[in-house]
């Protein structure tokens, strides 16, 4: 079967005709396969959802009990027939529960990697390469400028600043699912065992990680107890990036504005956002990891989606690998 016939983009999302399902659809559909719980990939309102246990739980936490009509757990590595297609889920290393989805029919296999990364992350399973004919890769950081540094070094920058500015609250903006918990886990690994204060938007997800056995240590709500703002002096406060531009941030003494994101690599981006201490920590592949993954999987074709497709397609051409951009709409790379 030709790959283009097995999976192709439609306005609702990537569609498998022989299997009659969509992968990460952006509009409500009959049957959806979801790679991971980020809001632009996992939406509510589908009739039937197939995803990992963790992704289903996260969707329930975010959208409530009735986020879909019926759900089915995808066990990692197990093959499952759906109409004329066979699918299997494999760890993607992006966030807790994230999976790549391999779709197979009549001898052709396509791997939809979703969002993925190759680095160690204490809060999720590592990426597993799956051989395939077509590898669909994201390209969020698909430019040769993106070389994410060691995340331990980025955490050390925060710890240094806590020592240098013990009178200031350290406000870390981090995406509520995945990034926030990873930053907390990395801080704990680096020996920071003081209480970490979290924004209300993070509470349920952090609780969920803790029930899954990821120890995030002493987390406390970042609300003023009595009138003593000084409890935040020299403390780490974590919340979604949008909260720090909001009135919510006014309760903290002389805050240091921090943002944990792959975008923080480019100084001008940090400056524009008014970030004082950028932490370059990403849940996506950097350029070296993207190119290394394509080399390792060695598919006969690469389809490149959301991000900077043109540079990765160009690199594939230079390596003699067939590649083309796959134009999918509705995915947001700015929240990273």
């Amino acid at each position, binding site marked *: 079967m030709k790959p283009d016939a097995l999976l192709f983009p439609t306005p609702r999302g990537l569609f498998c005709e022989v299997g009659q399902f969509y992968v990460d659809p952006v509009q409500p559909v009959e049957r959806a396969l979801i790679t991971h719980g980020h809001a632009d990939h996992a939406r509510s309102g589908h009739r039937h959802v197939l995803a990992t246990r963790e992704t289903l739980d996260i969707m329930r936490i975010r959208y409530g009990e009735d986020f879909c009509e019926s759900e089915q757990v995808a066990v990692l590595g197990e093959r499952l027939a759906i109409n004329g297609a066979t699918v299997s889920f494999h760890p993607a290393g992006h966030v807790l529960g994230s999976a790549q989805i391999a779709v197979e029919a009549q001898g052709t296999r396509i791997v939809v990697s979703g969002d993925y990364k190759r680095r160690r992350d204490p809060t999720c399973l590592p990426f597993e390469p799956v051989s395939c004919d077509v590898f669909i890769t994201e390209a969020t950081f698909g430019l*040769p*400028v993106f070389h994410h540094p060691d995340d331990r070094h980025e955490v050390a920058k925060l710890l240094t600043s806590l020592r240098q500015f013990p009178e200031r609250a350290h406000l870390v903006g981090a995406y509520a699912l995945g990034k926030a918990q990873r930053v907390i886990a990395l801080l704990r690994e680096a020996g920071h065992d003081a209480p970490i204060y979290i924004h209300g938007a993070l509470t349920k997800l952090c609780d969920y990680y803790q029930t899954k056995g990821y120890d995030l240590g002493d987390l406390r709500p970042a609300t003023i107890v009595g009138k003593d703002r000084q409890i935040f002096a020299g403390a780490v406060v974590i919340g979604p990036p949008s909260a720090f531009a909001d009135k919510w941030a006014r309760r903290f003494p002389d*805050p240091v504005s921090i943002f944990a994101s792959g975008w923080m690599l*480019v100084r001008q981006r940090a400056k524009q956002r*008014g970030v*004082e201490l950028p932490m370059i920590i990403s849940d996506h592949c950097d350029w070296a990891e993207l190119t290394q993954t394509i080399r390792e999987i060695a598919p006969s074709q690469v389809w490149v989606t959301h991000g900077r497709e043109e540079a990765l397609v160009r690199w594939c051409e230079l390596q003699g690998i067939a590649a083309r951009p796959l134009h999918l709409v509705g995915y947001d790379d700015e929240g990273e």
Partner: protein
Amino acid sequence: MRAFAELLDRLVLTPQRNAKIRLLTDYFRATPDPDRGYALAAIASTLSLNAVKPALLRELVLERMDEVLFRYSYDYVGDLAETISLVWEPTADADRKEYDLSLGAIIHQLQSVSRSEVRALVRSLLDQMDSSSRFAFLKLVTGGLRIGVSARLAKQAVADVGGRDIGDVETLWHGLSPPYTELFQWLEGKAEKPALKTPAVFHAVMLATPVGDNDLASLDPADFAAEWKWDGIRVQLANLGGTRRLYSRSGDDISGTFPDILEAADFEGVIDGELLVGGTSRTNRATRTFSDLQQRLNRKTVSGKMLEDYPAFVRGYDLLFSGTTDIRSDGFLARREKLANLVEAASPVHFDLSPLVPFSTWEELDHLRSEPPDPVIEGIMLKRLDSPYTSGRAKGPWFKWKRNPYNIDAVLMYAQRGHGKRSSYYSDFTFGVWTEGDGKDVLVPVGKAYFGFTDAELEVLDRFVRNNTIERFGPVRSVRAEADFGFVVEVAFEGINRSGRHKSGVAMRFPRISRLRTDKLPRDADRLETLIAMIDGVKLT
């Protein structure tokens, strides 16, 4: 190099002055000589390196990278040094020679390398550094760190290392050179204060405190001399032991920009005065405005025409050295008498004496201050007759009493989020006034202000911005500003000049929001013509 690179990365994103100083001080304390001294030199722009041309860097990166991919990258990042620092990947067969990557060692190599070896050296260094160090290195060799730290701020941090006054560091500064080892040794108490070889060094200037409420009530006018506060730049002109130098107030050597003054300074001594352009009182020609003086500032080369069109002169305030004798401990009147004699003998087109303003009561002086006889006067200086010349800003011997600021009513047009404490507030405001455009009245931006208001007023402004946003451009919002709906603020400022850089054609000095005019509608705000008339010195009633 790594510690220096991390320092730069922090400084460039740190808005608060005190936080910058702490980052610098911590770095100077933790870093050994000579690295810290070279870092200081790089920040204070006293480091001379053979610059590496951007074209060479581009060639180096394209040796190992596809041109199309480089172009995509450069387009995205927008800064050549940063792009190269990020895309650079060491090759497998990279030069295995181990380089000493300390800042001092790198600078030493750059200073001693021959022209033909530059390419290979830069390539090898880039191969061995991490990305952040590559960025600092490339900024260093292409000239221009642009990290928002002035030489003065760096000197303040240096002084803090040893708990000294910045005046001590400024006085020594021009007698020392990178890597400033003896300076740091002294600050850390490990060596004597460095002895200066050049006599014509900068001596930290004496500064005045503003006249506050009730300051004058307890003082006797008979103890003070008054003189005009001229609107130029404060300078120190030194000619000692055959060395002539012109320094700005903060000790920057600006001799190269004013060869006319240097040449005319044929007397021995150190003068404190105001640098101005135009004619001296001794030639009976008018003193010209600050915007004319700006034509002469910050130039590396000065053309003959520039010297002719914008003649500079020094209006003497004080004398620190008479001949080679340090007279700073003498009283003000005694020093002034010697200054008068010196000026009398000096070139009449390049030097005059700032006249004393006779007065007998504070009320009389207050009146003179409000209506000065010359547009280039920005207020009154009060100096105790018996005061010695002491560096720094002690309260008591000298006061400054500024004329009242200019005021206009303007309309808020844009707001930007502040930094640090104010990062959740829209606290940087662009305001405009009315002018005619396309046959109808439109608002044209005339300035930006981010202080002057109280915390309570900021809450009001912030609420208005959040509730009346029209468009967002990154951190900037445009707000509703129509004839019958909008927010009027009273803007106070110290002066106004013509400016070709601004759409409105005017630029204010030190604008701040002095009052919220919630009682006014935007249609009642001022017009651009009013501002232009202020430049021309027309009295407006």
